[in-house]
């Protein structure tokens, strides 16, 4: 199945979907979204890319092997958990630091182990599902 229209449109659509997936990941803590949804959107983007332009091209676009991505995601989630242990709190306790802002919880960039954990979820979903989809497209 090779369609010129699809192949051309995919470049734009897949890029937009990827941006959107990161957007969904980041806003997940306060609005609908999160690691699962973001990850699935990213998977859909790459699946579409693979369908229209071939798996080889999609793998090149991803640059990292999907399996490595999944393992890295698990690693992120684990590190997010261990951060709590380092501070002497239970495993997976949320840790927050705010960069900038007025020091009273307003403004500035709030970073947290929670975000790292959600990134881990995102990466696991992307890596695992894409690993299967790419392999199936190639071998079956």
């Amino acid at each position, binding site marked *: 199945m090779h369609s010129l229209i699809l192949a051309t449109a995919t470049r734009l659509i897949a890029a937009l979907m990827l941006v959107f997936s990161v957007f969904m990941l980041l806003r997940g803590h306060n609005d609908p979204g999160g690691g699962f949804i973001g990850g699935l959107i990213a998977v859909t983007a790459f699946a579409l890319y693979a369908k229209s332009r071939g798996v080889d091209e999609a793998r090149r676009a991803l640059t990292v092997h999907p399996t490595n991505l999944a393992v890295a995601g698990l690693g992120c989630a684990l590190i997010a958990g261990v951060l709590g242990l380092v501070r002497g709190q239970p495993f997976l306790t949320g840790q927050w630091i705010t960069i900038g802002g007025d020091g009273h919880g307003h403004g500035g960039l709030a970073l947290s182990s929670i975000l790292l954990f959600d990134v881990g979820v995102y990466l696991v979903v992307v890596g695992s*599902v894409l690993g*299967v989809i790419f392999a199936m497209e190639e071998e079956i």
Partner: protein
Amino acid sequence: MEALLAITVGAMTAAGVYLMLSWNMMRFLFGLVVIGNAANLAILTVGRHYGPAPPLVPDGQTAPAELVANALPQALILTAIVISFGILAFTVVLLYRAYEEMGTISGDDMRVAEPRPQPDQSTVGS
């Protein structure tokens, strides 16, 4: 609302069970999908219906102002959906590979680990 959902879940479960009882592993797989969805809806039903307001806390407040949807079953279902997707993807691949190895998609004929007692018919290609 709950009554309608209960009936829908019942119908889905019946369809899923019927499909899972097929000898054809492909239909079994379809049954697994349907019954998985039924289970998710069952959790949703048990969490009750509080209207369409999503469980979000408005900006600048510490708790939802009015009654919002039950967040707990939603979190459970979200987990369940992703896990069942992972498992189903694995099952699809397993089914395909089983067909490749054994040349059949009949669950009754997949007997590599536990061959039939009588040695008269061997349905295993490997």
